[in-house]
């Protein structure tokens, strides 16, 4: 007899996601601690970002990602209120926010590569910048796929409020990581 997902005790999925979040947080913490140590140990660290438009642009990306966390938390609330249509709408809004973040991020990468000639191989800064922001972008993309599967299931009457909350935990984690990437990578490399 197969083991059904319904045999999971309440909170098991949420606990599993918390464990994943904490372990993944260690990955980002390691990268950012190494980056910060290198940054402080290098007096002539490159400062490729101008206040306008680069920092304003990255600030806009941050606000967009924060907005997608707001719609995600509304999706969790709607699911807890057993309102599936509203849950689907807020999940779609979250997916739209995540997609907008990736599109903005890719446009920024394109500009850095083609106009500013900052490549991963050109400097230590380039290598760290694309490694950290690329890993984060990969997490956002995975989150979009996760939320798309969740949205389809909720629309068809599958999944519980805990499932949506578990998806929300992942999405907020991605947002939380960016709260450190933005200041450490961007704001610590602003052109005087």
């Amino acid at each position, binding site marked *: 007899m197969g083991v059904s997902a319904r045999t999971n005790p309440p909170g098991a999925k949420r*606990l599993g996601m*918390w*464990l994943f979040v*904490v372990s993944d*947080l*260690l990955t980002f*913490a*390691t990268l950012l*601690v*190494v980056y*910060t*140590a*290198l*940054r*402080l*140990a*290098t*007096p002539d*660290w490159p400062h490729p970002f101008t*206040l306008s438009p680069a*920092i*304003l642009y990255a*600030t806009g990306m*941050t*606000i967009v990602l*924060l*907005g997608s*966390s*707001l719609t*995600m*938390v*509304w999706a969790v*609330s709607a699911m807890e209120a057993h309102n599936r249509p509203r849950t689907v709408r807020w999940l779609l809004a979250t997916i739209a926010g995540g997609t907008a973040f990736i599109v903005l991020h890719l446009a920024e990468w394109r500009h850095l590569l083609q106009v500013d000639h900052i490549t991963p191989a050109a400097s230590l800064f380039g290598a760290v910048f694309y490694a950290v922001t690329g890993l984060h972008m990969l997490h956002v993309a995975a989150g979009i796929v996760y939320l798309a599967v969740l949205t389809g299931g909720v629309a068809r009457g599958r999944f519980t409020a805990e499932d949506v*909350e578990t998806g*929300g*935990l992942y999405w*907020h*984690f991605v*947002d*939380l990581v960016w*709260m*450190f990437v*933005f*200041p*450490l990578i961007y*704001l*610590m490399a*602003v052109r*005087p």
Partner: protein
Amino acid sequence: MSYVAVWAALALLTLAEAALAWVHAAPALMLTLLLALSFAKAGLIAWWFMHLRTRLPKALLFAIPMLFLCIGLLFALLPDGIRAGAMR
């Protein structure tokens, strides 16, 4: 505190961080200020959006060992960062 208020606080803290870029403080001071703001933002996200406020006792069981791991990592990697200056 409503979720919109949390989002507004997060957006304001983000703008405060961006405003710090205008100051051009010394890297160590800048880093300290930015990390303080970042931890405040991370706390708001975890406390309100990730519902840590209702699940704190269970979460602490996992967070506290991980915190020690993170601090250990910091001390394990810091000497390499300090040596990096001399290796250039």
